[in-house]
């Protein structure tokens, strides 16, 4: 399911959930809009604030900067970064 998509979870009996999220480069725009909706509408629209996701997005930006500006990722995928 894309980010920033209204959704609800419904089960027919008591259940335990396990799930996760990921950020896709192709849907960054919607991820950003979702963050704004989360900040403004909070618990009215969501049951969590997804705190760690903001750290992951900051890391994504650092990755893009390293790949594009610093040239630390070669186009064949090999990293030139020592760490």
């Amino acid at each position, binding site marked *: 399911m894309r980010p920033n998509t209204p959704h609800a979870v419904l089960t027919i009996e008591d259940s335990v959930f396990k799930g996760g999220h990921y950020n896709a480069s192709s849907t960054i725009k919607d991820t950003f809009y979702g963050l704004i909706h989360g900040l403004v509408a909070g618990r009215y629209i969501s049951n969590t604030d997804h705190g760690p996701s903001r750290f992951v997005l*900051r890391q994504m930006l650092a990755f893009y900067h390293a790949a*594009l500006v610093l040239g630390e990722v070669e186009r064949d*995928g090999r990293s030139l970064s020592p760490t």
Partner: protein
Amino acid sequence: MISMLSNYYPEKAWAHVPDVLTVDGRIGLITLCSFGVLCNVLDFDTYRFPGQRRDEKLSPKKREKLVAHDYNAMTPRDRLHCMRTRALALDLVCWLDWKYEGLDWSELFGCTVGQHCAALYAYKAKAEAQDIEGAPHCTLKAIATQLAGIFYVESSLQRDINRAIQDVLDEVDTEDKSLSVDNIWDSVTLSEKDQDGEYDSSYLMDIYMIITDTRVTRSC
């Protein structure tokens, strides 16, 4: 993250990088740069005093520290990470300007950040009017304060942000204030500029200095 991606998926790392030559790729990249600039503003902990519970009222002394000195629940490590992210976002935009012709990247980035800030402000104003509570202790006034202090006051980006918010305040009806920036991005064909030498990131340190000058001093 570079290490993680290239160790586990050595052939896939580059596939995660947006293609600047496509409209969707550059809108995604610039949107993430806008997030980089706004990462403090969008963090829930920015609006909370350290240790403050959801329903806890602050004493006047704590409120003074939070409002006047931006002493909030973000950890120093996170705040530094945000400063670094902001610098990287600005550097990425400068690099795009250096690398590709066909678009005025700096101007478009200013418009994008301004539109995002204006939409956030208008959206929060509407939510408050309807008594919809967002992030704990995050008020319209607190958001306005954060948006007014992203860069030093004379910088062109801060002027773009202030102007966009002022436009919202001047409008009676903000119903059409959208987060979408698709309309300001023309479908142009980009080409690489002929450049002598490598891109110079040395002024990145200047950006760091500007950011730390305005943000760290406010947090002390």
